[in-house]
């Protein structure tokens, strides 16, 4: 049955800062001394600094088969995607199966899927809220391109695709189930407009400009310590250049896919405008104008008019 333990979602379209937030949460918990005695002792033994590949354990991704199999009591790969989306929202929150710090679940699914019969594809019972991270779609396109080794044209088409999904093939296995996202705009709105759990909306661009202010909002939302000196230190320790240096020092970040040179690549905003063609930007802005305006992004004057 559902556990009384609190849990939250870190919901985002891919390449929108989800991992950055998870790294920050891990570091904040470490600095605040919140994690288990074992984990803390072991970290102290080794070194005092944050290590990417070993310490980044904020909780399963919601699309993990390991979690679903445990909850459903069956092999989830014996169900088709449509059958799975109907039951995913009813599985219980993973009751501290491995460690107590695993309360923040990454999720790339849209809140509902065409197969979920209007119900959420994630469990909401006992959920304390969702941190919804968004990033300008033009920058997401560039980042997707590096991550998946895709041409920019394909990335733009993916963002616009109303049926887009991750792990959608029904012809091969994998450790995650299909995650329906729909278009970039649909994805963000599905989370922001749902009425079942509280939402904290964070823009990647704001995290870059005013990291202490916005990471503090994040900490407060997640019931984590949010004293200014603590936030300042956690922000300083998880700045992009530091993560990038750690990725080099540790010989690669394990969430980096095959063919992707580095996970923490640029972290900047504005790359989309530099690298996408004017036509591609126009395509995105026209298709997503309402959502872009709603989330506070400026449009080209021609589209705005």
């Amino acid at each position: 049955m559902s556990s009384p333990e609190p849990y939250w979602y870190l919901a985002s379209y891919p390449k929108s800062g989800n991992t950055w937030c998870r790294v920050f949460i891990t570091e904040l918990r470490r600095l605040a001394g919140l994690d288990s005695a074992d984990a803390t002792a072991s970290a102290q033994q080794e070194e005092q600094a944050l290590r990417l590949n070993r310490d980044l354990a904020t909780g399963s991704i919601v699309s993990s088969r390991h979690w679903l199999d445990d909850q459903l009591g069956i092999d989830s790969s014996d169900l088709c995607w449509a059958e799975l989306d109907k039951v995913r929202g009813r599985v219980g929150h993973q009751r501290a199966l491995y460690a107590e710090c695993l309360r923040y679940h990454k999720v790339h699914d849209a809140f509902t899927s065409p197969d979920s019969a209007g119900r959420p594809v994630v469990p909401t019972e006992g959920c304390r809220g969702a941190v919804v991270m968004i990033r300008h779609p033009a920058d997401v396109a560039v980042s997707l391109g590096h991550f998946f080794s895709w041409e920019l044209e394909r990335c733009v088409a993916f963002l616009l695709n109303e049926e887009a999904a991750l792990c959608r093939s029904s012809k091969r296995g994998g450790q995650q189930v299909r995650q329906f996202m729909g278009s970039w705009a649909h994805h963000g709105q599905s989370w922001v407009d749902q009425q079942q759990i509280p939402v904290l909306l964070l823009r990647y661009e704001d995290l870059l400009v005013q990291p202490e202010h916005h990471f503090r909002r994040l900490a407060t939302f997640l019931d984590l310590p949010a004293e200014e000196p603590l936030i300042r230190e956690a922000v300083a320790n998880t700045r992009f250049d530091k993560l990038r240096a750690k990725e080099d020092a540790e010989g690669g970040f394990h969430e980096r896919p095959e063919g992707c040179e580095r996970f923490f690549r640029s972290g900047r905003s504005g790359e989309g405008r530099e690298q996408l063609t004017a036509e591609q930007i126009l395509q995105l802005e026209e298709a997503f104008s309402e959502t872009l305006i709603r989330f506070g992004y400026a449009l080209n004057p021609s589209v705005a008019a």
Partner: protein
Amino acid sequence: MTVSQAHYRAFELNWRSQGLAIPELPGCSLAALAGADPLIAIEPEEPDSWPQLEPGPHDTPFLRMARGDLRLTVDDIGRFRIKDGERIAWHRQHSGVSDQDICTFLLGSAVGALLIQRGILVLHGNALEKDGQAIVCMGHSGAGKSTLAYALMQQGWRLLADDLVAISPDGLVLPGIPRIKLWHDAAKAFDLDPVQLPPIRQGMHKYLLMGEAVQRATEAVPLQALYLIHQRRHDSPDPEASRITRITSQKAAALRLRNQAFRPRFVRGLGQEGLNFMALARLQSRVPLASLPLPAGIAAMQDWLEQQDLLQAVATAEGPAPAEQDAELVSA
């Protein structure tokens, strides 16, 4: 296809199924069942006749468990009750549910629950036999266990068990369910024609290899090595990443093995945790555990496997210092 009654032999147990043919299980004549082994009953039953179970601490919306009694609901497909290690009752949710649908969940979950109720150690993986000795390959859903098993069968190994691996107290791997489930892409990569294969369920692109399509081992054999499979990265800068590595730390081995037990939730919910813990400890003291870094891609995997002697590799494999493996547990 329905049958009034059929007999099967698997996990060194005799099974009698009523109203449901289970093509995945090795058949057996009634005369051959004359031995003293107990007979497990698989029967259809109306769930209305099942007594209520009090909610348990390990229940989920799909599972109700108490000592000796497990209820599993597979939405829109069926319900199962597994009782005292002796009986599996099943119920078809509606007439659109095929026998194959029932068999898929019955073999995957209900049989596993029944073995756990009998106090048998069940690992999640597959077991292969060569020269009268067995290896067990484990890994989470999607790690490539079935693909590996099929590749090994191409190299002369015989299949002992797939999905559920039952190990006797004296360290023998029992012959289990002799079938493999391969995804469409893996079947193609092995030059199999998916159109010719029965799907695990109607409309799914995952197929059953069984009967004459698999070479199976029929006798229980001693377990030589336990492998944890993981996909190796193409771009790993570390040549060590392609070596079979023995897990020498007792602590690391215990945790990894515990994570590979078949459905730990069933074990806890059925009150078998103590027994299971002892059985795992006994296994760990007896059989070496190593990581098996599979190269990506089926051709590369087959080439690499040909160079390995999986019966002996663990005995000669080196491992990092136990302290280093213990430190890795933070992220395990």
